[in-house]
């Protein structure tokens, strides 16, 4: 499957690259969008290969990242529009989705997207119960109840007046 990016069919003049996700889907991306990722830029500088295989990013996440890159590579869009796109981009996304996004941006080194996603995750995490965070992050509590109580005693101030919510 070859998907063109959001800017529509690419002109012959414009250089493009094919990026393949770990599940085998291929995305056609303009080079100007791809180089917004520091990692992709490095790869493109090192070799002429027009096919880049990303072994640890799934197709859904990759599609989102590419939509982001293409929008930010579009010179026709004002900075304000790009900012509101960023807001729109992370709003309403499941915590899980954001987690994969932050992983992908970490791998691809897309600083501004990484910032946007991490900030959104922090906003969601705020005022959540410990249990909620463990569940959403799939963290297994490996403390003994005694050890956990001890930590709570040591840094009691960190929990004393928090407004907790649970979803």
């Amino acid at each position, binding site marked *: 499957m070859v998907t063109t990016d959001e800017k529509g069919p690419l002109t012959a003049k414009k250089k493009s690259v094919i990026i393949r996700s770990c599940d085998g889907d291929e995305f056609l991306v303009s080079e100007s969008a791809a180089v917004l990722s520091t990692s992709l830029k490095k790869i493109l500088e090192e070799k002429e290969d027009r096919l880049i295989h990303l072994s640890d990013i799934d197709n859904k996440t990759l599609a989102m990242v590419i939509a982001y890159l293409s929008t930010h590579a579009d010179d026709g869009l004002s900075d304000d529009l790009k900012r509101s796109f960023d807001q729109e981009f992370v709003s309403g996304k499941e915590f899980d989705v954001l*987690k994969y996004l932050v992983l992908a941006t970490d791998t691809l080194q897309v600083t501004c997207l990484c910032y946007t996603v991490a900030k959104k995750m922090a906003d969601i995490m705020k005022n959540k119960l410990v249990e909620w965070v463990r569940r959403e992050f799939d963290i297994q509590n490996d*403390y003994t109840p005694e050890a956990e109580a001890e930590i709570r005693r040591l840094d009691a101030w960190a929990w004393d007046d928090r407004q907790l919510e649970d979803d």
Partner: protein
Amino acid sequence: MEKTIQSIDMHMNQIVPSIDRLSDLPDDAICHILSFLPTKISVATSILAKRWRFLWAHVPNLDFGRCDFSIKAEYSDIIHRIMLLHKVKSMTTFRLFHIYSDKYQLETWITIAIERNVQNIDLHIVVRLPRLLEELIIDESYIMDESYIIDGKLDCFNISSPTLKKLTVDFPFNLDLKVKINAPALRYLQVYDCSCVYIIVSPMPSLIEADICVNNCSLEEDEVVKFLRCLGLLFSYLEFLLSNLVTFVLSKQIPLHFLDIDVSGSIVQFDHLTRLELKLDIDWRSLIKLLEIAVNLEVLIVDVDVSYWMEAKQVPICLLLHLRNIRIDQMRYTDHEFNMVRYFLRNAKVLKRMEIYCQDIEIDFKAKFDALQRISLFERGSEACQTKDTDTTEKKIENHLPLDEE
């Protein structure tokens, strides 16, 4: 708290061992997420699992913000503990909000932050001083990249950092405050309400912008003298050290002629100064002196009370070669001001635009028209010059006035 522990225990019993998907996330990424949260919340994550026990200590900022930190004396101990456990070598931000602490503690924390190469310090503090028992809460101020914003109430404040790029000092109300600034990499300096501040600065060879706002109308005579001394000190340092100064804004509200004292006799040049904004009652000699040392000045904005004007013997170099824009705010249409305008128009050889704003919006059109007539007859040193005279209230009058020439 009890309830939370219980629910966690229940959760533990139910849990089926699963892959910790977050272990996919590197510590750096987790710390990045936590960096958007107040320190209190990132410390609270230590309860999640053993791996998280000290992850917060690697979050690049410490934010003891307003919302999550009560004003209690014992929080000083907590901050102290957190700062000791915090392991980051390059901190981005250190923020304190309305914390009761004594100045020694505060200095210790700031020293620690600076040793960790902090980029931003944002302090909104309540400090109890023995002599001034009333508690003062300083207004909120904004944090900027690579900057320290320090609002405070201390006897003496040392700001010392090899990497600091931007500094805002805003110390209202404290009459005996001393500020020592040792920041060789500083690029932007703003000082507000420094009328009562003694500022001692060390060399700042990288400074490109200085905005000094002196803002106190209710000073007593001896305070004026004291103030003069400290400003003189600041200014002589500025003169001496700031070879890269590009923009320099100096403003104040009380009539003083301190520039006369400090600028005259100076052999230093502001080689890189391109924009000079003066909002003070300046002596004509001081103004000329400033123009002489700012050899590459391109933009001059004066909002001054010129009570006397005399032609200088020698025309400053910047007038002959570089000065393109002059704006005169608060024109009162006195003869001395007309003399100043005439002087600039005649001697500024590359002037492109002169804007004059009148001080009093009551001045009728007739008076303005007469003034424009008068100015239009002045000799022009630059052929490209256009003049514009307008009300402060109507800043954008284009092509309405007789002197607007292309």
